[in-house]
């Protein structure tokens, strides 16, 4: 049986409902909250600040350091708090997704810390985390070339879909999940992972769907930033 209709009634290339907010954590230099469907990510940026231990410092340019963490109550079954193999990996890919956009030449020997906390998870957490982190970095005033947007695309049954939720990821007849992060101005891809099986042709088509969705996401991100600083314009 093929996958003919999505469980929540969305079109195949439609994302879940998105909410974005900037400036949610007062004590951070920059922060943002990003919600897509039931997935909620909060990102906080601290720095640029001194980096210790000293041997990690780079006198040429500053360093970006990302930390991904899922809160114990974010999923149905409690997950053990603290770093895990998975969170370490996602922290690393988040860092690599964001680092082509930030320009830390002006902050030698310093570090910019990004903390991504998932407070509610319903698939697509790393993409939500990247979107939140990009907004938080902009809010912190870190020089950036572009605002990264990320979305997961994939194949559920035999259909290509955008923004899978948990029930689709667990589809009995097999589902493939491919998170993609895109720099919208240049169309470059800074994150591409694949969990499952897809044909080369399908991947190309899925990437195009992701690109379209990311442009839409980017608009929402920019709007959220504008909203915080609205009083400051003319």
């Amino acid at each position, binding site marked *: 049986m093929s996958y003919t209709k999505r469980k929540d009634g969305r079109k195949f290339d439609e994302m879940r409902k998105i909410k974005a907010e900037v400036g949610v954590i007062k004590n951070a*230099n*920059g922060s943002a909250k990003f919600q897509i469907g039931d997935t909620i990510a909060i990102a906080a940026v601290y*720095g*640029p*600040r*001194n980096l210790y231990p000293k041997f990690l410092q780079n*006198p040429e340019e*500053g360093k970006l350091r990302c930390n991904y963490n899922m809160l114990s109550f974010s999923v149905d079954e409690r997950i053990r708090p603290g770093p895990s193999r998975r969170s370490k990996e996602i922290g690393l890919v988040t860092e690599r997704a964001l680092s082509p*956009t930030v*320009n830390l030449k*002006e*902050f*030698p*020997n*310093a570090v910019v810390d990004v903390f991504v906390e998932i407070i509610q998870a319903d698939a697509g957490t790393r993409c939500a985390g990247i979107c939140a982190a990009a907004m938080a970095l*902009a*809010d*912190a*005033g*870190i*020089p*950036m*070339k*572009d*605002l990264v947007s990320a979305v997961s695309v994939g194949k559920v049954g035999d259909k290509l879909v955008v923004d899978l939720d948990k029930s689709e990821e667990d589809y009995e007849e097999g589902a493939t999940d491919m998170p993609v992060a895109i*720099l*919208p*101005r240049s169309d470059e891809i800074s994150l591409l992972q694949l969990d499952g099986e897809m044909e080369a042709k399908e991947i190309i088509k899925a990437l195009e769907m992701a690109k379209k969705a990311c442009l839409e996401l980017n608009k929402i991100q*920019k709007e959220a*930033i*504008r909203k915080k*600083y*609205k*009083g*400051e*314009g*003319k």
Partner: protein
Amino acid sequence: MGKILVKNKEMVVPGEVIVEGMDYLPAGNVFRENDKIIAETIGLVNVDNRLVKLIPLTGFYKAKKNDVVIGQVRNITFSGWLMDIGCSDLATLNLRDASSDFIDKKADLTKIYNFNDTVIAKITNVTKTGYIDLTMRGPGLTKLRGGRLIKVAASKVPRIIGKQGSMIHIIKEKTNCKVIVGQNGFVWIQSEDPVNEKKAIDTIRLIEKESATEGLTEKVEGLLK
């Protein structure tokens, strides 16, 4: 011919194209990519003849030579003090620049400026690698005793001071406080009366929040009446 895509004084976010064409020049907080000039931070566009720059709305204070700043002692070394002036790096205040008085080499440095002491200092040098040198030799550069330190965004400092010091003058006069504003956005306030001190802080916070509104001086004047 160049084309400006964003109106003057309008807000942009990182990655937005401001100008297309080679006959405009990128200045502060923007960069050029091929023939486009693109915003690097959140800020207000400012096109001056052929120069395109952004007035940033967030971000750290960027140390500039000859700026008079307010700093706080964070660390003491054998040859001087390390000050927090709101940059990513701590600024160095060397022993021989610390005071116009003679300081003996063996002197206990905590006796002169201790941890968390607040001082007014001037930036003498900023190196490319991020080192900032301070001096306290000069008129008006002293240690601040007592008082309270609040931090505002460095981009709001011109608004707090006002045209020829009009805004700061009103605050000082109406609240009877001593107010000193550093270029780095550190504001030191001292008053005999805590109620007045609170009033001055509230006023500065209001200016920070509504820095773009017109007729702010009148509003502040009315508030402090």
